[in-house]
């Protein structure tokens, strides 16, 4: 017998199960990533953010949590304008980080 109940998927971040390889890679190639405090200045000024769901400070947080699927889906919307780098108060090399993310995801085919 089938009960047709659709089980809802958890939206919890299960930190223990997430793979943070991307974060450790970025820490090595772009150490300024450690300084990000997710203040949101980058997202506020983002050109692509006006018309797409690109939210760079959320991507920075997702990198630290290991949420690869979300990052892979969103990061390609960046237009590489570089405005985020101009406003970051901590001098994080945001544009460099984006290029490194894309390269990492491509080489690991995520």
């Amino acid at each position, binding site marked *: 017998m089938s009960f047709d*109940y*659709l*089980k*809802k998927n*958890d939206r919890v971040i299960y930190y223990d199960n997430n793979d943070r390889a991307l974060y450790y890679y970025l820490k090595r190639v772009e150490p300024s990533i450690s300084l990000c405090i997710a203040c949101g200045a980058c997202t506020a000024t983002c050109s692509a953010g006006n018309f797409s769901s690109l939210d760079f400070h959320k991507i920075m947080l997702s990198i630290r949590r290991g949420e690869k699927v979300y990052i892979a889906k969103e990061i390609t919307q960046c237009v590489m304008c570089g405005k985020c780098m101009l406003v970051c108060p901590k001098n994080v090399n945001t544009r460099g980080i984006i290029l490194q993310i894309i390269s990492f995801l491509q080489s690991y085919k995520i």
Partner: protein
Amino acid sequence: MDNNLNWDKFEKEIANNHYYYARSCIRQNFFPGAEEIFINILRNNLKKDIYDDPKHTTCTGIGYHSSIIPLETTMTVIARQFSLMNEAGYQNFVCSCVTSFGLYLEVLSTWHHFPETLEKTKKYLKEATGRTFELPKNLVHASDIIYKFRNELASMIKYKLINFKTQEPLNVVEHVGCHYAKIFPESGIGGAEYPRVLSGIIETWGGRVIDYPERRHCCGFGFRQYLVKSNRGYSYSHSLKKLESMKPYKVDLIITNCPGCNYFLDRWQYVAAVNENKLFGRDNKAIPVLTFEELTAILLGYNPWKVGLQMHQIPVEPLLDKLGISYSKEEKYFKTKAPKIPTILNY
């Protein structure tokens, strides 16, 4: 384990005798033996006076929480319950259902903080039925009474909550209904974080209380969620979260005091077993879910089938075997036809 710094000194007032019993809609329909056995335990074993009024009605909790009955109607129905209690000559109100308990407390609190609503209710009741009412002196839930007399019952029970072959205490999960203490923490024994009402009973009777990560997570009953079939998956997911969290602890028994929680934890295990082949208890079996009245009754030696344990969807025989309680396989369904049990639960 359950050490409550502030709640140790706080004693909830529970009356000693002369109770007016208000039954539960759900418990009566799904597990009818439970309430009858509670009355029997109080009368025959504890020699207390408890009044079972045929004239009382539902408290309208289901309707109120699903927004189909307005608050004024609920207040008037509750006022009528109190009026019946006065008429029968009682001042101590005992609810069987935790949702009722929460609703009565809510209404009493509303009447206390907004006296104009009390005046209106008096008017409505008078106009609708010609009755007047006085507030009860003491309002508790039925599990509070078992908690109060747990030591007396400990000396009366024939079986302790231990595996009688190995003498090891049984691993018991206790699940207290949300409306018991989460709304008015000071009205629940032990407060809202670590309610003592069921864990106190389990520990006094020899069991081991299991503290697992999703212990205080709601079972997902919540009226609105399950009433419509398309939403039921949401309730199912909540109970599943709890059950999956319990799995590593090799649980022998779940005890609840809320009829809704009891029904859900029982039924969703059945659904999980049949749909997804998942079992969550010790030795890869499902976990029997008992109400506190049913547990008290079988420990006191009442016949498990007269208590109504065959109405549960998860078979209770493994638990009865562990406790050392003898039961008759033939008597299980009396003269009715036994239902078809899925293979995964047929052990």
